[in-house]
């Protein structure tokens, strides 16, 4: 069979549904770390993403080009984040501003403990999730790879839970695959592996573990060739999803021949 990869890439996997919105790509991208808007646009297109995070910062008249407009032009849905917030109070305020600026009630909730680890502050995260759900936001909660916390967030009304693979920007991959599997097995909202992805195989593994989608930014934007890496991730996510659904063979202690021993020719 000679189906081309581009044809199969767009058609083979089941779509992702979040809050009633259907996505044919299971790759969610961030926009941080790209040196230019043009380069970013090309990488996002190559990755096939349909949902992309943005941060909210003070308007600066000197900035050329609008990121928001770029995403609108490419038909990519915007997921504002609360990056840089250390408290629930700041996160709620940022989410409110994002809803006003970008006209969406979706928010990637990020409440970090400190700039050194960039790890989520569980206490503030829970508090912020509760407040934002109360105010009608659809909360995509960026969380530690903690199965207990993930379930808590879901029970508080999070629309999706987004456990980290490794700390933001490290590219260390998925440090605790067992926890990710556990989170997936107990969740009834979409699970998005977010942060720590370094290269395509990390994203494939996330999907094989049962995640519904993968979110990454710098793995693409800071790659030596962001467009090519975007394309690599597109295929990795599809491959991982297919493998998950195809059902992998169980791991075994000992070898198991795939050729029958019966009917072998005999030699003197």
């Amino acid at each position: 069979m000679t189906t081309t990869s581009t044809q199969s890439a767009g058609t083979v996997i089941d779509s992702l549904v979040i809050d009633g919105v259907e996505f044919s790509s299971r790759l969610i991208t961030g926009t941080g770390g790209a040196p230019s808007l043009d380069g970013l646009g090309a990488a996002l297109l190559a990755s096939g993403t349909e949902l992309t995070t943005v941060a909210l910062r003070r308007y600066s008249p000197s900035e050329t080009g609008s990121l928001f407009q770029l995403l609108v032009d490419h038909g990519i849905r915007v997921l504002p984040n609360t990056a840089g917030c250390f408290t629930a109070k700041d996160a709620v305020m940022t989410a409110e501003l994002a809803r006003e600026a970008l006209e969406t009630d979706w928010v990637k909730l990020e409440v970090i403990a400190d700039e050194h680890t960039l790890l989520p502050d569980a206490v503030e995260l829970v508090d912020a999730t509760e407040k934002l759900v109360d105010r009608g936001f659809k909360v995509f909660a960026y969380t530690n790879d903690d199965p207990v916390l993930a379930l808590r967030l879901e029970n508080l009304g999070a629309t999706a839970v987004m456990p980290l693979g490794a700390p933001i920007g490290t590219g260390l991959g998925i440090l605790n695959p067992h926890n990710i599997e556990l989170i997936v097995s107990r969740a009834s909202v979409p699970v998005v592996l977010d942060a720590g992805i370094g290269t395509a195989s990390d994203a494939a593994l996330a999907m094989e573990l049962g995640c519904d989608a993968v979110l990454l930014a710098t793995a693409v934007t800071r790659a030596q060739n962001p467009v090519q890496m975007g394309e690599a991730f597109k295929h990795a996510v599809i491959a991982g999803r297919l493998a998950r659904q195809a059902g992998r063979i169980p791991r075994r202690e000992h070898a198991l021949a795939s050729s029958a021993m019966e009917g072998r020719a005999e030699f003197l």
Partner: protein
Amino acid sequence: MNIKLNGAQHTLGEGASVTTVVSHITGRALDANGQASDGLKIGVAVARNSEVVPRSQWAATALAEGDELEIVTAVQGG
């Protein structure tokens, strides 16, 4: 009157509203409902003294001496 806009001091004429400031800083004309007159998304939000001012209220919100305004927009991140 003097206000603080994104952390910097600015002097405005009397009677300035949020619309006046947003229009000035973005260089875009705004309709009374807070949408850009050119039909494209303006993509900014405003907080006045740490309270979000909805787009629909920009024109009706007069600024006062000492107000602190934050005007934010989407940038690369996440």
